[in-house]
């Protein structure tokens, strides 16, 4: 028994060291989404000026097809980086993309689309304090969600979408969901 007590400290330390080793491979700031496999939040967001009266985004609009919902804002620098990829996706017709203009002035949001291109079918305005974004569990922009035909969130991608991420990760999920 006494022997055991003497060995205990080094044994505990060894276990701790293993955790540290694993910890070096993890990212403590990576928070997984809790909304996966849950229905899209209730929302009925107004359209941007100049895009048409009925081009806003509501929960019902997300049913019937598999779509990508992109969170952006005119203040968001990475969104500019991501945008050409979204334009290409629209050009190819891979899947419909909708957007939530997060915590933005509608005029600025619309102007940003005119300047950078408009790949979206529907865009809804989410004014401060960004209630819809919070409902989606958004922590920054850009973030994108894959929503299936029943309006259930199936995947969340944090950060800008690159062509590689689209073809290797997101598009296969969309195709899979379309089959169901």
């Amino acid at each position, binding site marked *: *028994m006494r022997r055991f*007590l003497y060995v205990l400290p080094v044994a505990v330390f060894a276990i701790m060291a293993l955790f540290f080793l694993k910890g070096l491979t993890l990212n403590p700031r990576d*928070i*997984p989404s*809790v*909304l996966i496999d849950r229905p899209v939040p209730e929302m009925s967001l107004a359209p941007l000026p100049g895009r048409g009266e009925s081009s806003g985004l509501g929960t019902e609009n997300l049913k019937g097809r598999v779509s990508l919902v992109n969170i952006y804002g005119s203040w*968001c*620098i*990475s969104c500019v980086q991501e945008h050409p990829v979204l334009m290409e996706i629209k050009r190819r017709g891979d899947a419909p993309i909708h957007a939530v203009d997060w*915590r933005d002035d509608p005029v600025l949001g619309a102007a940003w689309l005119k300047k950078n291109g408009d790949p979206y079918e529907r865009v809804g305005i989410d004014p*401060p*304090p*960004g*209630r819809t*974004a*919070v*409902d*989606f*569990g958004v*922590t*920054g*922009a*850009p973030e994108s969600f894959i929503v299936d035909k029943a309006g259930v969130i199936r995947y969340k991608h*944090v*950060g*800008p979408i690159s062509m590689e991420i689209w073809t290797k990760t997101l598009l296969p999920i969309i195709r899979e969901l379309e089959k169901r």
Partner: protein
Amino acid sequence: MKRLVVALLLLSTPALAVNPDEMLKDPAQEHRARELGKDLRCLVCQNQSIDDSDADLAKDLRVIVRERIAKGDSDEQVKKFVVDRYGDYVLLKPPFKVTTLALWLGPLALFLGGLWAVLAFYRRRPAAGTAPPPPPLSAEERRRLDTLLKESER
């Protein structure tokens, strides 16, 4: 994977960030909002509560928390609202669940373990005072003892 987060990842946090225009009129409700704010984590910062952070997302959450309180939600309901959207990670006081049992019961277990070790330590040895008395001192030893005692403290 790099992404530009909305708010700055801060080491420098200027002041406590609650602004007068965010505060609720009813002091009791505002007090509840502040207490809740202390328990909710700012998700884009390095380890701060939403009350302490200047980040935009923290401000959004502060406003939303106050909205829910004003709508009549209880403290538990407000917490559940935020946790439903962001997960347990947003609570600075970890919930008491199966996955956090080791955390919450750990300290007590450690203390009891320590006490048990101490008890084992005492039981192992013959109690002080029951050992056979030492042989009496010789004159020489007595003199040395006196010298030493003069130099020591109480």
